[in-house]
């Protein structure tokens, strides 16, 4: 065989109508309902913060691509940077100052993604890297949550100008608005020695947790709308059921068990699943293709690991953001999982030896 013939382009000469851009666009489409809803619930400051985060990410991406000598336009058009920023913004407190969004976006794109070599090369989920980095570096603005203001839940939701002041003014959040998230409220109560049953009951009504009219991060509150988006992604074949089901399943199982054993100490499965961004994480973050395993078996292990670790961190380490840490830890384990969970090759045993003929006779 000559060198020409072996480098000759080869088939297939047909291709599925499927591209990275289509994947990213569909994920964004799945996020739209929750985004619109939360913009309404949290008002103008959330909109501003979201816009700043996305814009900063796009600019950072363009600069990184330009520095790396890659086609800027084509790579920006794949939508991955916008999606990373979108997910990061979703995990920020809605009234956080503008620079939180900007710094987060730059961390996500530069450190989370391009240091590793760009799209597909990063070991860790960029949005979660940024979220955890922000949380550690700026714990105060990263944990200042507010009550939802839409739906007449509050007498005076901040208007456009007030919103500008909250996001860009640097004066912090009006005291009247600040509130704790359901998860941290419960954790505070548990810390004060209240039994979990009382703590959960006093926190938020379950329907509000499901609908999302509670204090929380910019896009994480509406379990129902996020789950609807996730179902759409399953239907559109952007994700498979393996990661979300394994994640939610292991979490429900653990919290259900713990709750049955010691109801005073551990909140039940419903509370665990509806708070702390579990739904967002299960459908949108842990399913990030780049940082999760490529095999179906590996995805089950990965999802279960995320669920287990985040429950452990939430229950014993007292970080409401347990899922973000859990996902990063499992990201680190992904290469190992991929190596260990290869599918069995046709005609070979699990260990890669050819099947023996005796088995067939």
């Amino acid at each position, binding site marked *: 065989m000559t060198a020409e013939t*072996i480098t000759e382009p080869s088939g297939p000469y047909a291709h599925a109508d499927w591209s990275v851009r289509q994947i990213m666009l569909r994920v964004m489409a799945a996020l739209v309902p929750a985004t619109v809803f939360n913009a309404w619930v949290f008002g103008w400051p959330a909109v501003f913060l979201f816009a700043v985060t996305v814009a900063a990410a796009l600019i950072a991406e363009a600069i990184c691509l330009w520095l790396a000598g890659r086609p800027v336009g084509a790579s920006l058009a794949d939508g991955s940077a916008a999606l990373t920023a979108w997910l990061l913004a979703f995990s920020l407190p809605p009234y956080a100052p503008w620079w939180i969004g900007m710094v987060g976006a730059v961390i996500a794109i530069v450190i989370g993604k391009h240091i590793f070599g*760009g799209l597909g090369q990063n070991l860790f989920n960029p949005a979660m890297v940024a979220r955890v980095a922000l949380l550690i570096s700026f714990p105060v603005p990263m944990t200042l949550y507010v009550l939802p203001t839409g739906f007449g839940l509050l007498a005076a939701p901040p208007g456009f100008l007030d919103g500008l002041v909250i996001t860009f003014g640097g004066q912090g959040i009006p005291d009247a608005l600040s509130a704790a998230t359901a998860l941290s409220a419960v954790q505070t109560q548990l810390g004060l020695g209240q039994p979990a049953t009382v703590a959960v009951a006093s926190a938020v009504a379950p329907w509000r947790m499901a609908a999302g009219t509670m204090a929380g991060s910019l896009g994480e509150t509406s379990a129902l709308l996020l789950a609807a988006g996730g179902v759409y992604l399953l239907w559109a074949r952007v994700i498979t059921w393996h990661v979300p089901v394994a994640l939610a399943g292991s979490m429900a199982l653990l919290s259900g068990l713990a709750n049955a054993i010691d109801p005073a100490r551990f909140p039940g499965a419903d509370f665990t699943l509806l708070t702390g961004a579990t739904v967002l994480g299960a459908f949108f973050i842990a399913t990030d293709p780049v*940082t999760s395993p490529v095999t179906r078996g590996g*995805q089950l292990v990965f999802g279960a690991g995320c669920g287990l670790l985040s429950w452990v961190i939430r229950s014993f380490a007292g970080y409401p953001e347990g899922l973000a840490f859990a996902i990063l830890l499992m990201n680190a384990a992904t290469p190992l999982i991929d190596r260990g969970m290869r599918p069995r090759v046709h*005609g070979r045993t699990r260990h890669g030896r050819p099947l023996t003929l005796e088995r067939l006779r």
Partner: protein
Amino acid sequence: MKLFRIRGGVDVAHRKELSSEEPIMPLPLPSRLYVPLRQHGGAPAEPVVSVGDRVLKGQLLAAPQGSVSAPVHAPTSGEILNIGRQITAHPSAIPQPTIVLESDGCEEWVDLPPPIRDPFAASAASLATRVADCGIVGLGGAAFPTAVKLDAAARGTVDTLVINGAECEPYLTCDDRIMRERAGEIIDGVRIMAHALGATRIVIAIERNKPQALDTMTRAADTVGPEILIVAIPARYPMGSERHLVLLVTGREIPARRLPADVGVSVHNVATARAVHRAVRVGEPLISRVMTVSGGAVRRPRNLEVPIGALVCELLDAAGGTTEAPARLLAGGPMMGQPLHSLVVPVVKGTSGILALAASEIRTAPEQGCIRCGTCVSVCPCGLVPMEMAALIRHEKLEQAVAVGLHDCVACGSCAYACPSHIPLVQYFHYAKGRLKQLGHEQRRRDLARRLAASRAERLERIARAKREAVAARKAAAAAKKVAEAQAHGDGPVGSAAGS
């Protein structure tokens, strides 16, 4: 019938409607036919005719060489114009020895060998000989000599004959049409093969997207009794892949690096079965076959009975020509077919179709980085991790790619078809396989050179030693002689030395 589970696969847009309703029509006889001597797996055939000879239709042009080879016959009557080299639709795209035959338009047949009247009373060996003499090769695309498979299997290990009517490649409809129009001939050929093999189970697998073929074949099979099972299999690419088809219908998984016969199965294509029928019942050699001419750039897609050696441009002309410059010209289907770079190449026994694809059909997009989405892993019917193999190959870690299954890849293209980053995964695999072969050759050449050098050094050493020994022997002999002479003269050697 119970079907077994096959992992992976892709739902391809099958595009068979372009030509599936076109009855098989003969290609108008070309004035010249370019008959390659190597259209099959194995050694090329050796010409038995000379330039200027007049040959008759069906006459032997070239005889097989070695145990895996196949003869080549004249597709029509006429004169041998030339025996030279010509690029063919064969995968290698390297000029192949080819006989050029100028047709005289008479279509005058040679005396064919007599029909085997009762093949079911004939011996397996005589049937295999007939199939071999008629130059029959697998018409599904691999073009492996059929008689070799009948022979090898005739050692009494095969119990199941699987007939492949899946035709899972998009666009191709030639097998569909043969099943709809020549079902009786296929069934007869199948029974003959089963008899030759001593197979007790016969399964004909047809994809569900060919309901008429399923229907016709079922009716034709029913007329001969219950021994032939027609099964509808899912229309999913690559169901027609030999290893996967065997697993699907028999539940037997062929071990890596083994053949279907090792698990007691012999797999043949429906068109091959029909060719076997013609060879046995009529004595007709394989000098033509049905091909599909299709694609978005073809004006009137057709199914044509084409004499071997016709040119691709003649097939396209018979299909009304092209409506636009084809973006891609292929021999075979779009998933595993070979690109053609010229219209003036002859078609061969293994050519199942000629496709002229329009730009809108091939969906080219620049290769992007792998996003590790795992799509390739979930669609691979062989259980491989294509993205990992490609990454290893990109870093020239070929041995590692082999360790994770490079040689288990059947090059079906499902992974590259589905990859959202448009990574030409199969191209990486072809590259690596070619490179390893090349490295193997180089290694063998180096080994040979080292062995030659070593043996040369040894030879020189041997010669030198022989010389030294000869010299020593001569010296010793001379000394002995002197001693003897001295003793004969009653003089001591010392004295003689002192005297000198």
